[in-house]
C-alpha cells in the first residue's frame, strides 16, 4: 500500500499522519485552519473541548522526548481524550513480535490512536500498516525520516506572522540537515505551500546526498544563506555529532553557522527566528537572539498544542461533510 493511501481514507480525509509526503496542499491548509480554531481553547477558563471525550490515545514512545510527549499529552487532554503514556525500551525493534503483541494488547483495550516516537525511520508507517482499521497513528518523529507535526507547527507559526502567501517568502533552514527529520518535513511542507525560496545552510558534512533533490538552494556560507531571509529556522545540533569526524568543535561551528545579532543584519528587518528546541545556546544560536524580539521559539511550543489538537481530531473523524 502506498504512503498516500495509508494516510488518507477513501473520502480523502486524514486517517494517519505519518509524513508530509503524500499529502496535498489543501490538507495542509485544513490542518492550519483547524489549528487556528483550536488556538482559542487555551483562553477558556476550562481549557478543554469535549471533541474526543471517551477516546483513548496512547503515547507510544520508544525514544525519550519529554517535551514532544508532553505537548501531545496536553493536546489530547484539551480534546478531552484519555491518555496513556508508554515509554518502551529503545532496544525494541519495530519488526519484533513484542511490538506487534503490544499493539494487539492496546487494541484489545479499545485504544483509538497511537502517537508513535521511534528511533528507526519508517516505524510509524510500519505500525500504521499493522494496526486495526479503527486506530489512527500519528508520527511524533521516526529516525531521520519525518516529524510532520513539528513541521506543521512551524508552518502555523510562519503563517501567523507572515500571512497566507508563502510565495513571497525566503526561508533559510540552518544546521544539521543530515540527521534532521524535522528539516525534511519542513522542506516538504514549505514546498507544498509554494514557498518562494527554500534554502538550506550547512557544512558539507551535515548535508544529505539527496539535498539537491528536495528542491532547495544550498549554501555553505551562513551570511549568504540568510541574506534577505524572511524566516530563519535553526536546527538543533546533536552534541554527539561533535565527537565524530563531522565537525571540528562547538566553538568553530558557532563561528561559522551560529546565529548572532551581528549576522541578523543580513536578513530582512522583520525576520522570524525559529528553532524546534531544545536550544544549545552559544552553539546554534546566541542567547540574545534566542531571547530577542525576532525569536518566536516559545510561540512555536504554544502553537504545537493547537496543531496537534487539529491533527488528532482530523485523524479521529471517520468521515466529513460541511457543518450546517
Amino acid at each position, binding site marked *: 500500500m502506498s504512503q498516500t493511501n495509508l494516510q488518507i481514507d477513501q473520502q480523502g*480525509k486524514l486517517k494517519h499522519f505519518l509524513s508530509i509526503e503524500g499529502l496535498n496542499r489543501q490538507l495542509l491548509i485544513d490542518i492550519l485552519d483547524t489549528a*487556528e480554531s483550536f488556538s482559542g481553547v487555551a483562553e477558556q477558563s476550562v481549557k478543554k*473541548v469535549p471533541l474526543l471525550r471517551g477516546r483513548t490515545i496512547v503515547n507510544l514512545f520508544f525514544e525519550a522526548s519529554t517535551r514532544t510527549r508532553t505537548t501531545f499529552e496536553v493536546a489530547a487532554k484539551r480534546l478531552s481524550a484519555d491518555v496513556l503514556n508508554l515509554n518502551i525500551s529503545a532496544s525494541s525493534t519495530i519488526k519484533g513480535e513484542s511490538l506487534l503483541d503490544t499493539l494487539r494488547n492496546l487494541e484489545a483495550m479499545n485504544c483509538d490512536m497511537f502517537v508513535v516516537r521511534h528511533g528507526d525511520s519508517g516505524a510509524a508507517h510500519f505500525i500504521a500498516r499493522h494496526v486495526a482499521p479503527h486506530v489512527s497513528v500519528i508520527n511524533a518523529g521516526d529516525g531521520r525520516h519525518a516529524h510532520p507535526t513539528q513541521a506543521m507547527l512551524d508552518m502555523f507559526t510562519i503563517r501567523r506572522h507572515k500571512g497566507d502567501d508563502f510565495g513571497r517568502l525566503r526561508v533559510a533552514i540552518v544546521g544539521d540537515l543530515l540527521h534532521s527529520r524535522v528539516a525534511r518535513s519542513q522542506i516538504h511542507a514549505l514546498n507544498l505551500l509554494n514557498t518562494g525560496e527554500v534554502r538550506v545552510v550547512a557544512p558539507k558534512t551535515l548535508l544529505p546526498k539527496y539535498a539537491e533533490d528536495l528542491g532547495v538552494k544550498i549554501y555553505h556560507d551562513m551570511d549568504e544563506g540568510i541574506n534577505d531571509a524572511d524566516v530563519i529556522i535553526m536546527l538543533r545540533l546533536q552534541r554527539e555529532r561533535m565527537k565524530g569526524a563531522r565537525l571540528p568543535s562547538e566553538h568553530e561551528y558557532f563561528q561559522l553557522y551560529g546565529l548572532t545579532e551581528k549576522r541578523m543584519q543580513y536578513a530582512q528587518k522583520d525576520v522570524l527566528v525559529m528553532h524546534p528546541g531544545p536550544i544549545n545556546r552559544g552553539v546554534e544560536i546566541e542567547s540574545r537572539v534566542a531571547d530577542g524580539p525576532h525569536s518566536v521559539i516559545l510561540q512555536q511550543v504554544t502553537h504545537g498544542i493547537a496543531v496537534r489538537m487539529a491533527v488528532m481530531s*482530523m485523524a479521529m*473523524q471517520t468521515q466529513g*461533510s460541511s457543518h450546517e
Partner: protein
Amino acid sequence: MMNNQDIEQLLDNMVNELQQQLQQRQIKDPIMIGIHRGGVWIAQRLHEKMGLDSALGSLDISFYRDDFTRIGMNPQVQPSELPMSIDDQHIILIDDVLHTGRTIRAAMNELFDYGRPASILLAVLVERNAHELPIQADVIGKRLQLNNDEHIKLTGPAPLELVLQKIS
C-alpha cells in the same frame, strides 16, 4: 418564505418580549451571545435595537457537537469570542432556528467551559417542531410546524431571509 421586512417585524416583537422578560427578572445588564452563523446575525440586530452596553459575544459550537465523528470537522470554525468573564452574568443566548435542541445543548456546554453564568435566557427567531431534547426557548419570533422532509434556513447577513428547503 420570509423576507427581510418580515424578519425585521419579528425582531421588533422579540425586542419587546425580551425587554419585558428582563424587566420581570430584574436583569439590568445582560450579555448577548449569538451562535454561529445565523444566531450571530440575529444577535447583531437585536443587540443594536436594544442598545445594549456590553459588547456582543459569539459562540461556534463545532467542538461541542455530539455528531462530530459522523459529520466530521469543519476547518473553518470561527473561534468563539466572549467579550468579558461570564461568571455571575445574565446571558441572552440567541440562535436563528431551534430545531432538535442539540445546538443549544452544545452552546450551553461551551458557555459553562468559560464560566458559570447567573442565568441564561434563550431567544430564537424560529422555533420549529421535532425537538429531540427537552429544551425550550424563552422568546420566540415565530413558531413553525414543518414536515420531516422540510428544513428552514436563514440566509444573510444582509438581507436576512428565511428559506424553506426540501431534504432530498
